[in-house]
């Protein structure tokens, strides 16, 4: 996956500042489509780094083959799963690259993942320390609990993951009154009045006619896309869509075509081809064309170009399915998501889907849209027929947090959290870019991926940060391309500025220790006022 060099995706004016091209989008650019600057950058992988990363994977592969040979010839004890003696002549199960990678590369740095925590994952958490004597094949508890580890990994965007406060009290009360389990599916006995109230509230929150909630976010996507599209329909899905969207698209047995990530030219070309040529052999027109995209892509931190997608959708008469898992609650002036962020009309998006896991700190997902669409889904969705409904404490948590965000509980806590999240995001991203790390994504997205590239640095980064009491999430091969491993920070409204400063100092220290400051585009420290001719002199150094 080759990226373009530092590009800002807006047709703004280019102002060359001391030889460094800095494309800034002014507010009035591109006519009516974008009402605010859209600054997104994916810096190109430096060539030397790519070569060294491939070399390190090569060395790991050679040693992986050596260890596999030793395990095969019983020189070394085998800890992994293997076939039984009787099955040796069957089709091999564990020989593909994924299993090789898991056995020989992932296992060596496995202690940075699946770390058990023992407190509520708010702005800080407590970690149960584990150690391994046989190089991460087995772990034992040391008995120590690491307290107050700063949490840069939880999807706690608005800080509602707390065990005190209105949400927790409400959830506790309803548990005492109704119990925890619902013990039925939605269509049988599982439809309580709290669910209907939640759906009305969700619909008014999103600005749509009607909404429906489901118990699991992944199942919302994978079970509802097959209900909406079927054979003879076309799905245009983004390259980097989440596994739930891909699974739902495959289960629906429609034709799937993939366009380049967030690339409107690629999408338009596919739309034109679809309309001109129709279905593959018969050339009949497609029954439906559905565009699957996400609001914020969590591995890249990029935001969908929603105004352009909606313009394309209207021009070519396609439908848009927007998955706002990470962007609901996190973007927009009132937290209403990416539609409000761009100032667009929610009625333009045909199917608005989202999850309650991230900003509302609950579980489950929703689908919102026109009333006839949601009524159809109530009868035809697999999730409504077969899956248990959302349990009541979770419904209470969502109701309370949503009312807090909307301001309906009479306080301004929700609004202040949204503003604090936006400030934290902008500050954190700016400071990281000034330090010289390669950061992907849009300046406004609270998901901040920082590139590490090498597998050893991925393991070392997790360990060194934990030694300094900061918990981060590293992401490697199956979720990202093989040389582009990264550490993904999730900013929260619960983080105070002191916490962020401490985290940034530690990240800078670890970045110097591991030599992670790869960026070659030296970003100038930001100005407090808009750029004009008189500011040239200040930037001479």
């Amino acid at each position, binding site marked *: 996956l080759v990226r373009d060099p530092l590009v800002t995706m807006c047709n703004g004016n280019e102002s060359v500042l001391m030889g460094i091209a800095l494309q800034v989008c002014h507010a009035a650019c591109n006519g009516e489509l974008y009402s605010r600057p859209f600054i997104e950058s994916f810096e190109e992988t430096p060539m030397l780094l790519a070569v*060294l990363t491939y*070399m*390190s*994977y090569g*060395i*790991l592969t050679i*040693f992986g083959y*050596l260890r596999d040979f030793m395990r095969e010839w019983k020189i070394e004890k085998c800890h992994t799963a293997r076939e039984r003696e009787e099955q040796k002549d069957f089709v091999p199960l564990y020989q593909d690259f994924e299993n090789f990678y898991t056995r020989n*590369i992932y296992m*060596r*740095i496995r202690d940075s993942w699946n770390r058990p925590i023992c407190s509520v994952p708010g702005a800080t958490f407590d970690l149960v320390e584990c150690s391994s004597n046989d*190089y991460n094949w087995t772990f034992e508890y040391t008995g120590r609990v690491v307290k107050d580890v700063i949490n840069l990994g939880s999807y706690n965007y608005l800080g509602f993951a707390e065990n005190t406060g209105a949400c927790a009290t409400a959830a506790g009360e309803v548990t005492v009154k109704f119990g925890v389990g619902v013990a039925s599916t939605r269509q049988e006995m599982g439809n309580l009045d709290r669910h209907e109230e939640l759906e009305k509230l969700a619909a008014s929150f999103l600005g749509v006619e009607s909404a429906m909630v489901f118990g699991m976010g992944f199942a919302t996507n994978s079970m509802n896309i097959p209900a909406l599209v079927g054979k003879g329909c076309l799905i245009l899905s983004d390259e980097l869509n989440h596994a739930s969207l891909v699974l739902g698209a495959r289960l629906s047995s429609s034709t799937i075509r993939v366009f380049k990530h967030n690339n409107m030219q690629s999408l338009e070309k596919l739309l034109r081809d679809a309309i001109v040529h129709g279905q593959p052999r018969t050339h009949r027109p497609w029954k439906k064309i559905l565009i699957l995209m996400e609001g914020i892509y969590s591995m890249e931190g990029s935001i969908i170009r929603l105004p352009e997608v909606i313009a394309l959708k209207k021009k070519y008469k396609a439908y848009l399915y927007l998955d706002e898992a990470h962007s609901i609650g996190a973007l927009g002036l009132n937290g209403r998501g990416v539609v409000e962020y761009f100032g667009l009309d929610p009625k333009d998006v045909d199917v608005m889907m989202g999850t309650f896991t991230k900003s509302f700190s609950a579980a489950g997902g929703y689908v919102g849209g026109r009333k006839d669409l949601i009524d159809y889904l109530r009868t035809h969705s697999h999730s409504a027929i077969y899956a248990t409904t959302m349990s009541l404490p979770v419904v209470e948590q969502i109701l309370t947090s949503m009312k807090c965000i909307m301001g309906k509980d009479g306080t301004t806590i929700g609004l202040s959290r949204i503003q604090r999240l936006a400030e934290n995001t902008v500050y954190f991203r700016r400071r990281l870019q000034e330090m010289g790390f390669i950061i992907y994504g849009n300046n406004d997205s609270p998901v901040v991926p920082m590139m590490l590239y*090498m*597998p*050893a*640095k991925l*393991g*070392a980064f997790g360990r060194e940060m934990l030694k300094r009491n900061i918990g981060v999430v590293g992401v490697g091969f199956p979720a990202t391309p093989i040389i582009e491993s990264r550490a993904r920070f999730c900013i929260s409204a619960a983080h105070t500025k002191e916490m962020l400063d401490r985290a940034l100092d530690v990240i800078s220290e670890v970045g110097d*220790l*591991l*030599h992670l400051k790869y960026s070659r585009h030296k970003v100038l420290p930001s100005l407090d006022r808009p750029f004009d001719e008189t500011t040239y002199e200040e930037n001479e150094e």
Partner: protein
Amino acid sequence: MALGDAWKQLSWFYYQYVLVTALYMLEPWERTIFNSLLITVAAMAVYTCYVFMPQHIMAILHYFEVVQ
């Protein structure tokens, strides 16, 4: 202490080498194998240079007719 600083700098360089070649993730005996192989190959290269460099330099100078 200048020696202490030099030792710290050297150990930071060794740490970078271990990170970049992914030896950081390998067990100590695997690191020993890799380092031995690397040092063997490097030693052979240095030895070959030492043995053959005079002949090569004389050949170059002879070609450019600097020395007969």
